[in-house]
């Protein structure tokens, strides 16, 4: 099955049929180039070990682990409520999904029923986080091609959304708002219209971004037809989220297996067809519009008041019977999931975080990077929208 996708150099070091090295570094024909970890064109603190021949990349190995904190070990040492503050540290740009997935796992195993109001607020927070993450992506994608001004605009719009987060949760980055049993608080006074203003600002920013970035001839020249994901790779490489949707596969957990209140909201997953860098960027841009619309729907449809927190046992003696479960959600990069195993004690036996970048940035990137121009490595990496912290945790 491996030879289904030639040329595949995942068998390191690649050997020819006669057993000699496929890439002979001592021949002087190849140059080894480390892109990262200290490199502006890398997504976060990871590195790609490139072997280039002229301007063409003949082999790329992803190296991760620079951000490893051993979360899954630390969680085993903490009680169920002590885990809740550190889960959001797993993924920096979009921390809320960790909180939601962990809380949902615990609630399912402990048999806690979450009030409806809390469900709506959770959905609202997840959509806000999605917009933030996409805004960072747009800026990064343009910046990887030397268009710095887009990053300025999108980061400004993201700051506005962070303000809404701040007045809702009290923090800019790590919100620690969704805890097992519900959410910490209800919406503050006048949140609706302030959110409406923010959404208008974001919409105008998106229009500018569309005019300057997506209608730009040079941007098209760099991205159209570049870095195509073959549809036959989707299943073997576990591609999910916008990367799969850009390849005309409507993979969206929000539709496939609706969680929270997504079954009461009305939206259609965004589909692209060319599956190149441009299409992936365009799918994410249109996905922001969907999220903006979803937030408006949520604010309109959500109940005016109600309990936001279900009664949970004394957290100091909280023990959960033996069991295991898996909760997934559609984050801005693909399928995000938590796998929780409990053994009847007061501590989780095992927690495994399934980040979409785990497959995108390792196997898929190493597969796609072969044969592209060295100038496009940064653009390709960014277009997969990977965040190292969720690879190595």
């Amino acid at each position, binding site marked *: 099955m491996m030879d289904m996708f030639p040329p595949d150099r995942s068998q390191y070091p690649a050997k020819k049929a006669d057993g000699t090295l496929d890439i002979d570094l001592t021949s002087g024909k190849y140059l080894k180039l480390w892109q990262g970890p200290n490199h502006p*064109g890398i997504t976060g603190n990871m590195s790609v070990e490139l072997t280039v021949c002229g301007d063409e990349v003949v082999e790329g190995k992803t190296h991760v682990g620079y951000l490893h904190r051993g979360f899954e070990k630390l969680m085993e040492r903490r009680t169920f409520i002590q885990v809740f503050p550190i889960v959001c540290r797993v993924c920096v740009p979009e921390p809320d999904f960790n909180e939601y997935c962990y809380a949902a796992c615990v609630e399912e195993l402990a048999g806690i029923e979450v009030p409806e109001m809390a469900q709506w607020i959770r959905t609202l927070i997840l959509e806000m986080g999605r917009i933030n993450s996409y805004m960072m992506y747009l800026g990064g994608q343009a910046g990887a091609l030397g268009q710095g001004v887009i990053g*300025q605009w999108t980061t400004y719009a993201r700051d506005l959304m962070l303000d809404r987060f701040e007045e809702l949760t009290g923090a800019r980055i790590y919100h620690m708002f969704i805890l097992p049993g519900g959410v910490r608080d209800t919406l503050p006074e006048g949140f609706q219209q302030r959110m409406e203003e923010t959404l208008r600002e974001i919409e105008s920013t998106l229009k500018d971004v569309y005019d300057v970035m997506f209608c*730009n001839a040079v941007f098209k020249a760099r991205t159209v037809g570049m870095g195509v994901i073959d549809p036959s790779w989707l299943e073997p490489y576990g591609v999910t989220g916008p990367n799969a949707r850009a390849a005309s596969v409507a993979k969206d957990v929000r539709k496939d297996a609706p969680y929270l209140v997504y079954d009461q909201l009305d939206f259609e997953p965004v589909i692209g067809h060319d599956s190149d860098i441009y299409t992936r960027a365009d799918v994410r841009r249109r996905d922001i519009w969907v999220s903006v619309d979803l937030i408006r729907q949520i604010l309109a449809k959500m109940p005016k008041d109600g309990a936001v927190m279900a009664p949970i046992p004394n957290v100091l003696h909280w023990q959960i019977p033996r069991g295991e479960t898996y909760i997934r959600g559609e984050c801005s990069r693909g399928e995000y999931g938590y796998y929780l195993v409990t053994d009847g004690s007061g501590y989780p036996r095992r927690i495994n975080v399934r980040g979409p970048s785990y497959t995108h940035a390792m196997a898929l990137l190493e597969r796609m990077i072969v044969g592209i121009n060295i*100038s496009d490595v940064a653009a390709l990496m960014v277009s997969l929208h990977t965040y190292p912290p969720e690879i190595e945790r």
Partner: protein
Amino acid sequence: MDFDWMKIPYAFLTVFIVVNYGFLMTALIQKIGARAGRRYGIPIWQNYIDMIKNYSLRSSITHGVMFYLGPVFRLSGGVGLLLFVPTIYGSYMFSNFSFAGDLILALYFVFFGTLGMALGAGESGHPHAAIGVSRGLSQVSMAELPFAMAVFSVALQYQTLSVTDIVAAQQGGMLHWTLFTNPIAVTAAMLSFLGSMMRPPFDVVIAPQEIPIGPPTEYHSSYLAVMQTNRAIFPVAKIVIYMNLFFGGATGWPELFLKVFLLYLFSAFVGVCFPRFRVEQSVRWFLVWAVPLGILSIMVV
């Protein structure tokens, strides 16, 4: 003819004025670019501070003789370019060492700095620097081609190789400028001007997201300061040539400042809102758009 020694202090005066003007102008351009990103931008005197800071760094390491000479070549390229063309038309003080054949010399000096930079950066031994040098040489040589053609057509048009005469021929009203008498050549030259200003879409040489940051990767403290000084002189000197050839020169410092600023702003405006070409794309772009215009301009004249 006997050499007029008085020209030397005047030439130094010219360099001094141009350096300060260059610092302030690049800072102003950066501020304008920052406004496009809704930012306030750097202070106007930031470049001076950066230069003092870089000169004041205590340690500096070398990679060999050529590593020293790279920035020196670059600076001498900028200064030489400035010194051998008449900065102010008709002024004895600021016409510098311009002589009959200085157009050819200017063409050479435009390229000189890049070559020296390539030698120096090559010796630094950093792979990114090597990649940047290879990209830079291919792109700059491609960008110089239409400029050379435009210069030839202008020289043919005015039947002279002396910048002073060319400026003299353009005096007396805007309509005498080459911009209006030979628009095709000017267009070709301005396209190559975009390519040689190291701004997007033609800044793949120093592309920070790909090869941070190209040839100057290894340069630091004093070397970098020398290159900063040149970064202030070289654009002004180059623009002075463009101005003399195509935009009727300048009869006084205010006019020079204004024209140089506008010309620089032109490249900055293009640079703010474009991503960068890959190197082969930019080469192809020059081949498709600029070079035919250059050839055409020679044909027309």
